[in-house]
């Protein structure tokens, strides 16, 4: 892993990978959305609104997956002081928050015609809202801090915050089991899926498509931070040369 600690080595991989993730992600996403909207039948109970599944589930997956990655990056920064870990954590925060917000918004839009309400303070929705606030807190904590001026590393406090926040991930996952909820129980588990195969396959396309786009956004944001760091370092050197 330390072999890629060098930003130059990282950029040699990230630069060609970014357009590929972007292109393939968009293609899969468009194919999945087209299939979800036109090729699969409506659900026998929920009717057409079940098609919201194809954007709601990937958003939930990326909101939770985003924080899991952020916590791992925080751990790597704390333990190994990997120079790219802090940059990765900073880059993950905004797309993670975006997909968490999309999960809540699309869930709310799905809830109104299905349950008759936009919002309910039940375990799943509340723990997902807590995740949104956790992202907002992390972004506030790391914006304009000392680490941002020193090559994008995370402060010890921000890394610990990322790790502590990860406690919320299993709570979100198990919330529909632990509490009686308006939200349905787990549909896709390691043992299989309760969703019929005829409705499931476009979900695979949109989950993969959104995941690749998430990866592309993270790489773009990491590249921006690295470029900003290089500009700052060069300007500091020039100022030192002029001062000498």
């Amino acid at each position: 892993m330390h072999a890629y600690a060098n930003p130059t080595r990282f950029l040699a991989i990230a630069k060609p990978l970014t357009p590929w993730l972007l292109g393939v992600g968009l293609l899969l996403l468009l194919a999945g959305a087209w299939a979800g909207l036109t090729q699969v039948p409506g659900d026998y109970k929920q009717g057409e609104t079940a098609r919201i599944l194809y954007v709601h589930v990937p958003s939930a997956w990326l909101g939770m997956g985003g924080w899991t990655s952020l916590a791992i990056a925080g751990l790597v920064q704390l333990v190994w002081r990997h120079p790219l870990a802090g940059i990765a954590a900073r880059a993950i925060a905004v797309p993670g928050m975006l997909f968490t917000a999309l999960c809540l918004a699309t869930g709310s839009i799905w809830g109104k015609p299905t349950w008759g309400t936009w919002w309910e303070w039940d375990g799943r929705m509340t723990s997902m809202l807590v995740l949104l606030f956790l992202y907002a807190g992390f972004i506030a904590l790391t914006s304009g801090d000392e680490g941002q001026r020193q090559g994008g590393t995370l402060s010890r406090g921000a890394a610990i915050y990322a790790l502590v926040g990860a406690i919320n991930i299993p709570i979100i996952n198990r919330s529909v089991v632990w509490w009686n909820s308006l939200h349905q129980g787990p549909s896709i588990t390691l043992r299989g899926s309760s969703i019929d195969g005829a409705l499931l396959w476009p979900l695979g396309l949109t989950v993969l498509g959104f995941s690749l786009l998430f990866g592309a956004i993270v790489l773009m944001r990491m590249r921006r931070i690295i470029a900003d760091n290089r500009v700052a370092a060069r300007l500091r050197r020039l100022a030192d040369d002029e001062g000498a």
Partner: protein
Amino acid sequence: MTGVISGGGQWAYVAAAYALTALLTGGVLWYSWRAMAKAEKRSDALRADSRRGGAPRGNRK
């Protein structure tokens, strides 16, 4: 029975969910791409100027 709201009215909710997702995801993608391209262009220009031994572009008065 298909949900609380049934029939054609359901499509408005589906359209709203997809439109919001496309708008926000597209917005973050576009912003991230633009910010990255701008930062890398600035970094490359500065490096090229440093190699030529001149003052960095954008910092000249």
